[in-house]
């Protein structure tokens, strides 16, 4: 693991942010963000609206100038350059296609502005349009296209310039659910095909998990954690991250040693080793509902963590059942598979809960 990250850093990162901040009057939109995005990586900036993710993207694009810090693209300091002087292109949230131009003219716009020879423009426009499978639509106006088609034109319009980094601002937010899933797949394939760095901003955790190689979660202008989708889900280091990506139970406690947490009820549990918090700190233990086992203590490992309580409510979801189990000091949500071979419980039943030691993550509260 460590070796890979190191070698990625040695090849200079595609985008490198050091202490980047942005203030609007008294508001801190982005607060001292450090981030390296690797070459040909598909990177997601994930967070709720107003968390600073779009401002961060706009700073990379040059639409905003950072208030402080350093911003490099392939080792070149670009923080103060205007957007038209940067080797990046953007797919805007509502595509921002020029309504008075045809599809072909939209795609050719960037090349024309850079005074590329006419013959080269027409080949490259043709290539880009066929890359996004819009051949035959060259003469249409944006208002004659569906949302998905507009999205593709926006992609072609950006990619035709062969940017070193492609920025996408909520690229799928304007599409309906079914189209969104289709375009997710297409985007991922397109990124592999062109092989350049994609940085995209989204508030949709499923989209981030499905598409990206790595995710950075932001909240309140701060970058909380960066990692692969699996890392973010399995080993969140911040309560906000654990809560934003998937669902989780949070058990209060104190970190007693590198691998032991004393829960609020006095019980000690073993946890995976952590280094984001120091010993003696108040912490929370994040416990995913589907990783809590209910009943069937026989199959539990020898000294696994165990709790017992009463089923308060049950919610049937089709492929699973969600139980809210009341302990005497808190309520825990448990998601059990719905299968004939799994026992079903009902409100009022006394149940035992247990989990493997590696099912939990210790997070900053």
């Amino acid at each position, binding site marked *: 693991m460590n070796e890979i990250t190191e070698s990625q850093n040695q090849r200079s990162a595609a985008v490198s942010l050091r202490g980047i901040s942005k203030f609007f009057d008294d508001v801190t939109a982005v607060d001292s963000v450090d981030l390296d995005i690797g070459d040909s990586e598909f990177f997601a900036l994930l967070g709720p609206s107003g968390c600073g993710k779009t401002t961060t993207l706009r700073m990379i694009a040059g639409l905003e*100038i*950072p*208030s*402080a*810090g*350093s*911003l490099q693209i392939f080792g070149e300091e670009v*923080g*103060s350059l*205007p957007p038209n002087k940067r080797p990046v292109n953007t797919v805007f949230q509502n595509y921002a296609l020029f309504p008075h131009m045809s599809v072909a003219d939209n795609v050719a716009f960037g090349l024309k502005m850079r005074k590329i020879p006419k013959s080269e423009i027409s080949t490259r426009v043709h290539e880009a349009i066929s890359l996004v499978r819009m051949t035959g639509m060259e003469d249409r106006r944006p208002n004659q296209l569906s949302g998905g088609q507009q999205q593709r034109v926006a992609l072609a319009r950006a990619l035709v310039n062969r940017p070193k980094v492609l920025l996408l601002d909520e690229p799928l937010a304007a599409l309906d659910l079914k189209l969104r899933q289709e375009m997710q797949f297409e985007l991922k394939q397109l990124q592999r095909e062109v092989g350049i760095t994609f940085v995209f901003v989204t508030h949709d955790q499923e989209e981030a998990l499905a598409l990206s190689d790595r995710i950075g979660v932001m909240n309140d202008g701060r970058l909380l954690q960066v990692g692969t989708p699996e890392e973010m889900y399995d080993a969140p280091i911040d309560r906000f991250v654990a809560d934003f990506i998937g669902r989780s139970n949070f058990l209060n406690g104190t970190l007693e040693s590198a691998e032991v947490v004393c829960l609020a009820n006095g019980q000690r549990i073993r946890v995976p080793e952590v280094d984001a918090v120091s010993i003696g700190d108040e912490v929370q233990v994040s416990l995913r509902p589907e990783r809590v086992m209910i009943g069937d203590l026989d199959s539990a490992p020898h000294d696994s963590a165990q709790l017992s309580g009463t089923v308060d409510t049950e919610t049937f979801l089709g492929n699973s059942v969600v139980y809210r189990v009341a302990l005497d000091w808190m309520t825990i949500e448990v998601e059990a598979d719905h299968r004939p071979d799994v026992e079903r419980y009902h409100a009022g039943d006394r149940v035992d809960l247990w989990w493997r030691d590696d099912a939990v993550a210790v997070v900053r509260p």
Partner: protein
Amino acid sequence: MKLGAAELKREREERRRGFFLALPSFAYMLLFFALPLVIVLIYSFATRTSTGSTALSDWNLDAYRKLGEPIVRNVVVRSVVLAVITTVICLVVAYPFAWFCAHQRPTVRNVLLIAVMIPFWTNFLVRNYAWRILLSKGGPISTFTEAIGLGEVDILFTKTAVVIGLVYAYLPFMILPLYASIDRLDRRLIEAGRDLYGSGPQTFRRIILPLTMPGVIAGSILVFVPSMGAYVTPELLGGGKETMLGSYIVTQFLTARNWPVGASLSFVLMTVMLISTVIYFRSGGRNL
């Protein structure tokens, strides 16, 4: 830091760009609009000499005191009365018309609205002149009323003629905001009102009228304000007998040569308009 400076620089550049973009028109408006306005204000405190010229000395409020004199007061009162009558007539005629428009199919509705707008865009002077011809002795209206046995109509150069001309000129100003507010009415509220109050008039008074009040206020101001300051209409249809504020001011400059009084009256007229405009925006006029 370096980037902080770049951020400030870009912000300053943007401001400078905006400033230089605005500069030609801004300078023009300051020189050829704001300055003239200030000059009018200064003149309204000046003295008229016995020769009819204006002395820019001995600053006083004489011109404003003249507003209290019977001649000027009559003109002001007449202007207000005629403008109010015009506004009320427009309101009574325009409300059902706007209601009718709002309840038509979109195509019919658009045709009706364009039909209302077209006369408004045609030459103002010609529209007034047309009424002068229509109302003239032996003109079309007289001929018609005589033919059906009602006798001759001789109302040219009367207050009635002036009001007809003003209604004709400003009716579209009433219809359009009324239409906008009626069109926005939530039909379900009317149904609910019917449920509560039953009778049509009750529903109108308690639900429909309050909800369309912004349109009523906006339309009334849009009609009242220009009627107050009208000059061409009273001149052509009032024949100079039914002087209104606008004509009186013009007289002060072109014939009576009393610039301070003309200036003070202009200023008062403008203040009335400004206050009305504030009310207009307060009543949600910006959205209409």
